[in-house]
């Protein structure tokens, strides 16, 4: 993956949101490569329900940024055909749970077209999915569906936690010659940073985790919407003598064993934190990998802090479901492992 930079400065820098960074990433990719097409429900005139595609239809025309009929299977299925003919579709699924009608296309075709055709027909496309809870959404607007995607060979699964990464990872996803499920943590859409849409920004290679906070006594392994939670927990834990390292995975597939294992070997303890369900969730896979690679360095079992194993609850109860700082700290406390405990 070569490193690219954004277009040159035009306006003075001001704080930007993750939604703006994503928009900018698509815009730059579309300007650079005429084969990049954005499509989905309400992505054109409205600019998407989260305004992530705002302005793209105006700038590039409706053929490049297209309001499709309301049919997720159709959107992804036609994207397959477009990719077969040399385009690079960037598809928006309006909300996590509304991507499910498209799973047939995703699992039966998108993910395995390269494999079925012995490499002759790759599927360079991005499937953008706003995911996760914490925004008070009603039923079917808060699912964390990453485990379904992770369980499907042939897909990359990527999720940014910062404004900068939103730009860098989406550029990389669009440039990728394989299908990328790009999970956008909705509750971070409006998170701000000093990132300037005009400043040169690094395109991050897919598959590299990043250490967000250095620490020595345990590693918190996390991604997406749980990254800010873990950083806050790490600050709070300091008072109790814990110096926590926080790893933002950024990419679930491929998984960066190297960064994660190096950290856990140093700290000897690890907690995986995510808001999707724990049972059959991403944390199980991550904990197993860490255990396999770091067994002799571990002072305690790898713990998981996850959402409960329930359908996503109604908004008035979601705070009881979402893993917050306290649950992370409780898990950290349990890392004082003693035999027999």
């Amino acid at each position, binding site marked *: 993956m070569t490193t690219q930079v954004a277009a040159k400065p035009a306006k003075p820098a001001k704080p930007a949101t993750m939604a703006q960074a994503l928009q900018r990433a698509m815009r730059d990719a579309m300007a650079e490569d005429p084969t990049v097409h954005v499509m989905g429900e309400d992505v054109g005139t*409205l600019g998407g329900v989260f305004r992530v595609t705002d302005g793209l239809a105006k700038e590039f025309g409706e053929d490049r940024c297209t*309001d499709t*009929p309301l*049919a997720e299977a159709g959107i992804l299925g036609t994207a397959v055909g477009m990719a077969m003919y040399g385009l690079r579709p960037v598809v928006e699924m309006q909300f996590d749970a509304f991507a499910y009608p498209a799973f047939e296309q995703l699992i039966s075709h998108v993910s395995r077209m390269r494999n079925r055709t012995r490499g002759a027909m790759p599927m360079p496309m991005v499937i953008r999915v706003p995911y996760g809870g914490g925004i008070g959404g009603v039923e079917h607007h808060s699912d964390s569906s990453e485990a379904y995607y992770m369980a499907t060979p042939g897909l990359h699964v990527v999720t940014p936690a910062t404004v900068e990464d939103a730009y860098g990872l989406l550029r990389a996803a669009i440039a990728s010659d394989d299908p990328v499920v790009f999970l956008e943590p909705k509750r971070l859409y409006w998170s701000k940073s000093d990132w300037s849409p005009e400043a040169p920004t690094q395109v991050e290679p897919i598959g590299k985790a990043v250490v967000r906070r250095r620490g020595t006594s345990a590693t918190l392994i996390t991604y997406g919407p749980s990254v800010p939670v873990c950083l806050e927990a790490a600050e709070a834990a300091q008072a109790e003598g814990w110096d926590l390292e926080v790893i933002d995975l950024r990419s679930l597939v491929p998984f960066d064993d190297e960064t994660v294992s190096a950290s856990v070997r140093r700290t000897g303890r690890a907690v995986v934190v995510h808001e999707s369900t724990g049972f059959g969730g991403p944390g199980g896979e991550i904990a197993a990998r860490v255990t396999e690679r770091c067994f002799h360095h571990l002072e305690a079992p790898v713990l998981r802090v996850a959402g*409960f194993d*329930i359908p996503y*609850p109604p908004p008035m*109860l979601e705070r009881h479901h979402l893993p917050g700082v306290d*649950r992370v700290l409780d898990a950290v406390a349990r890392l004082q492992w003693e035999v027999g405990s």
Partner: protein
Amino acid sequence: MDSLQQRSSTVQEPPGATPGYRPTPPPAWKPRTDPAPLLPDAEPFRVLGTDAVAAADPELLRRLYAELVRGRRYNAQATALTKQGRLAVYPSTTGQEACEVAAALALEDRDWLFPSYRDTLAAVVRGLDPVQALTLLRGDWHTGYDPREHRIAPLSTPLATQLPHAVGLAHAARLKGDDVVALAMVGDGGTSEGDFHEALNFAAVWQAPVVFLVQNNGFAISVPLAKQTAAPSLAHKAVGYGMPGRLVDGNDAVAVHQVLTEAVARARRGGGPTLIEAITYRIEAHTNADDATRYRGDSEVEAWRAHDPILLLERELTERGMLDEDGKRAAAEAAETMAAALRERMNAEPVLDPMDLFAHVYAEQTTQLREQAAQLRAELDAESEA
């Protein structure tokens, strides 16, 4: 147009065909049904403004009027509740009340309603407690009522997914020998989903007692009908599946009620499914979270305000001497009473038990869920001690 004509002529005379040569059709081909009776009328069916109104039951007309007025007030009240933060979100049916009201009133008690997320009003008109109907949108639980008790399926947020359920239920009822009809409601955008097509196909093949009501309100969030379908009308879609399509003025309450009642009766006597397209308009934005100025102009909205369902019926009934000032006042007062009660009840904080999170995941709680419930219990106890 040109290319259409060209295309139809190529069908009749393949290029390069020998003059005078007539290819024979495949040996076994004949139409399975005559499509003509299935085709919708060219104009949406209307009753108001025609002599047919005189034949309508005056009781029904007054009932429709009262329900429209109450429904409008309900929409206004629910919208106000979103502004006060009492409802997380409300997709209004202001302007579409005739469809909602007629849908509920066309059914018998034993029939079932399969609403979309927008159809709270239909559920309320059918007799559901308004607070229970709003539970989903308030955010205290996903469905605030027992679907079996009211014969109203949960309001469906994923679009069109309730339609195959309606077909299955109606089919099951028929297998059991019950004369139950299912009415399934969907928006114009929802007709693009695969589930819509599959539901229609099953219903027609099984001749299930189902009525599909499409409220064509012009938009799916921001996407206008023209970008949703190239069909002559949504009602035309029926023909391809082998069921009749009906087109009705969705703001003419009497017409919608009549068309729905006929379709329900037809389904009940074993005549199979019907697809009804009601032409209406969404006066408010998609929900309170939507900015409609991004995709439509005021003049369009104003034109539809002039074709308001309450206005149309009120004018007709007044002119025919069936509604006077007292009648109007009575309807308005009844609506106001409903709104006041709703406001008051919605202002009370719902009492929630977080332990409910684990109560209804399985018939019997799994070991894992019991452990997680214990964890939450401990957290809640610690919270209340602190």
